[in-house]
């Protein structure tokens, strides 16, 4: 590479870093003060892009029209953020953290459908910035003037934020709340107003980040989850709550991505290395490296003081054998009464139930929240498909070997993950899932790329849908039974104990990390089994089985059912799969309906469906007594 092309890639990277920084700074600010991991932050960015597109059309393609549209879009997104805070999140600040997470997922679903309804499913390509559409020549290469402007905007916003945080009373409150929010409350500060204002500023930053991208990337409906993943990575690499860290991380990642595209395919010692294919992975590789070397990010400090704000986890009660037996008999009987359609849907539900139960095992009793559990489901599905199609193994062998492959990945991923805790751990699981996804997505020759693998059908004796349903029920039922049994074994008790008090576990001679690692492998293998059974029931697999969407589906199922009960995830998987299917048959806007239902549940039953019903039942019993 010549010096000129290095410089160009550097400038490209810095231009891309500007928007990344704005979004991440907003996310970081909101997390720091409210402790909410706001999955809807990417949706706000998406709204910024769409909003700018429409406003530019309304205000005209003049410099004044363009820039008023950008600012107006950002402010409108800020108001949307305030609405989310006031209408939803403010009501559940006292609910467990995971439940707040579920609420933000619901907001993601609702906003996606609002965007679909308003702007349609087609990508919308915005205009170039009026007055800045020319290119500037630097060292013989042409670089868009707009990119140079973006490069300048990053440091300007950083400076403004820094002034806001260090020179104003509001900034002092934000910094104080980031350090110790109860203390700030105890000192008589109106927390509701502080939170709302932080949400406004954070959302404006997300909206501005999106609006500024309109000349560079088309507005589309997949941006929400893609951007939230980027923003998570940057906040975590920079250090949660550190604006300067977010700036540094955005630059590192923006530049690294630009260089990967710029270098293209290189031949080293006879090996062809495609750097452009690394583009999708590079940020996650950087994040994994940073987290292993500096568990709190580049400029982050150990997690801020947080007192126990929610009640401790309640004791776990074992499901009754009698009730389980009734359910097994019912499930065995369904195909005799129901039609083919219901049998197929039940097969899906059974697979997702094992997926959700395995996720619940690791995030509930073991206390390690995973944002990337689809990795194991998807890798299990792909392992099954590839062993069957490419390695030519019999279907039965592929079905049973696939979980071992998923487990083998969990050995590697888990080793890194158990070294972290809390939000950092969750982000690292997301990073590994995204790395897996992008490898599968791009390795055309092996995985079929974005098309996936076709023709993965079960052997003749299992081809009948009813027979396959029984196989799925047997495999996934056994998986669920194993996980539930293990939870009450000494091994499972150690996991629960380690969640309650890692300090005490260590003080009575327990090597907690070893147990947590083993738990990762166990749930990885069983999620892989769910994926493997799912693959053969569908006949084909696509990269969406490893996507963030699949991971968040799993989280929704667990949280919907309730993380504090064992049966919750099963109920959550069944309700979510069934409602999604039922609603999707009537309207294209099933996400909004689903999101609305989830929000209702969140606001009415903060302990999830099963937890909420249990509480209602107990109240009814008390009243009778």
């Amino acid at each position, binding site marked *: 590479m010549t010096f000129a092309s290095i410089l160009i890639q550097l400038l490209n990277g810095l231009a891309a870093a500007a928007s990344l920084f704005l979004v991440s700074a907003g996310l970081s600010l909101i997390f720091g003060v409210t402790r909410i991991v706001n999955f809807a932050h990417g949706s706000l960015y998406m709204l910024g892009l769409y909003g700018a597109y429409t406003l530019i059309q309304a205000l005209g393609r003049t410099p004044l029209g363009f820039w008023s549209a950008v600012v107006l879009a950002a402010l409108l997104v800020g108001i949307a953020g305030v609405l989310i805070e006031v209408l939803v999140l403010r009501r559940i600040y006292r609910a467990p953290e995971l439940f707040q997470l579920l609420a933000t997922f619901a907001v993601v679903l609702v906003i996606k459908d609002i965007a679909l309804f308003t702007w349609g499913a087609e990508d919308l390509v915005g205009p170039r910035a009026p007055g800045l559409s020319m290119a500037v020549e630097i060292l013989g290469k042409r670089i868009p003037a707009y990119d140079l402007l973006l490069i300048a905007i990053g440091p300007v916003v950083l400076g403004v934020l820094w002034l806001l945080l260090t020179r104003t009373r509001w900034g002092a409150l934000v910094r104080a709340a980031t350090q110790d929010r109860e203390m700030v409350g105890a000192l008589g500060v109106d927390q509701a107003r502080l939170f709302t204002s932080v949400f406004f500023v954070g959302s404006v930053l997300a909206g501005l980040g999106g609006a500024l991208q309109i000349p560079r990337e088309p507005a589309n409906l997949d941006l929400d989850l893609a951007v939230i993943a980027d923003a998570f990575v940057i906040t975590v690499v920079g250090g949660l709550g550190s604006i300067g860290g977010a700036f540094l991380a955005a630059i590192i990642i923006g530049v690294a991505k630009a260089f990967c595209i710029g270098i293209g395919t290189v031949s080293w010692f006879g090996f062809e290395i495609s750097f452009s294919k690394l583009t999708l992975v590079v940020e996650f590789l950087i994040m994994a490296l940073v987290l292993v070397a500096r568990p709190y990010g580049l400029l982050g400090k150990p997690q801020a003081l947080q007192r126990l704000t929610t009640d*401790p986890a309640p004791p776990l009660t074992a499901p009754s054998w009698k009730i389980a037996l009734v359910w097994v008999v019912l499930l065995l009987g369904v195909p005799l009464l129901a039609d083919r359609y219901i049998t197929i849907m039940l097969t899906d539900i059974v697979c997702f139930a094992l997926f959700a139960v395995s996720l619940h095992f690791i995030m509930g009793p073991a206390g390690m929240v995973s944002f990337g559990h689809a990795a194991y489901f998807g890798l299990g599905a792909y392992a099954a498909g590839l062993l069957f199609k490419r390695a030519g193994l019999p279907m039965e062998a592929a079905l049973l070997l696939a979980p071992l492959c998923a487990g083998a990945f969990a050995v590697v991923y888990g080793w890194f993950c158990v070294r972290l805790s809390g939000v950092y751990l969750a982000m690292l699981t997301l990073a590994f899932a995204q790395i897996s996804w992008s490898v599968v997505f791009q390795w055309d020759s092996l995985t079929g790329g974005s098309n996936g693998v076709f023709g993965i059908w079960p052997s003749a004796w299992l081809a009948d849908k009813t027979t396959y349903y029984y196989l799925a029920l047997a495999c996934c039922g056994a998986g669920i039974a194993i996980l539930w049994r293990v939870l009450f074994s000494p091994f499972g008790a150690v996991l629960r104990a380690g969640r309650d008090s890692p300090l005490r576990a260590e003080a009575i001679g327990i090597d907690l990390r070893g147990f947590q690692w083993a738990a990762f492998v166990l749930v990885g293998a069983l999620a892989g089994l769910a994926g493997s059974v799912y693959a053969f029931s569908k006949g084909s697999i696509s990269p969406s089985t490893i996507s963030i969407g699949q991971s968040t589906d799993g989280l929704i199922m667990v949280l919907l059912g309730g993380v504090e009960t064992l049966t919750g995830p099963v109920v959550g998987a069944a309700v979510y799969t069934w409602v999604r299917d039922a609603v999707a048959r009537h309207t294209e806007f099933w996400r909004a309906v689903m999101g609305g239902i989830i929000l209702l549940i969140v606001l009415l039953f903060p302990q999830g469906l099963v937890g909420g019903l249990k509480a209602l039942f107990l109240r009814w019993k008390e009243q009778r007594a």
Partner: protein
Amino acid sequence: MNAVLQVEGLHKAFGGVQAVADVSFAVAAGEMLALIGPNGAGKSTCFNMLNGQLAPDAGIVRLAGRDIVGLRPRAVWRLGVGRTFQITATFVSLSVRENVQMALYSHAGRLRSLLQRFGAAFRAEADALLAQVGMLDQAERPCGVLAYGDLKRVELAMALANAPRLLLMDEPTAGMAPRERVELMELTAGLARARNIAVLFTEHDMDVVFSQADRIIVLDRGELIAGGTPAEVRANPKVRAVYLGSTH
């Protein structure tokens, strides 16, 4: 003296602050040694270096003659050191009995089993320990709902589960009512003497210290300024200066 714990020349600095400087002392089997000092004197820092939670900058910590500096807390525990914390650390979602059983299972190396039912083994042993600390009647309750003083008792039972030769108790009676404090420490002293366990504890309540400790050592600004029997320490002018703020 037949020392169970022997500490020589312990040092620890945080940045420029010398938290613990050249501290040396020993605890004998069956002895109750109190480590006292004003807030910020370095008591907790000192404590955390004894069981491996903090690495000292310099110094030797010998347990029954063996240097244990650099070992992790879990390894120190396996050598026979029980520990209670200033802010109780128990497994809140497990029952009182299960908390003690966890320590017993760990001691026996039987936690790796995947399919046995946890809680089936060591029930009688756990109940015996709970009876000793007066918590048997609450064995079925989850630790998350216990009163603070009761949690301290559960911690004591857990600390006794590996038949320790040394008990480290950081502020064992913090947050308890005055009468409970004396009761807990009398209980501890009784158990220590009966089982020949060495006990090192820090404490703010001087009634407890002077009534229960066999010997007292006094830490001020990271340095040991006095040591001896309760009567000797009570009469020591340096100690009076530190606690009463006078130099007479």
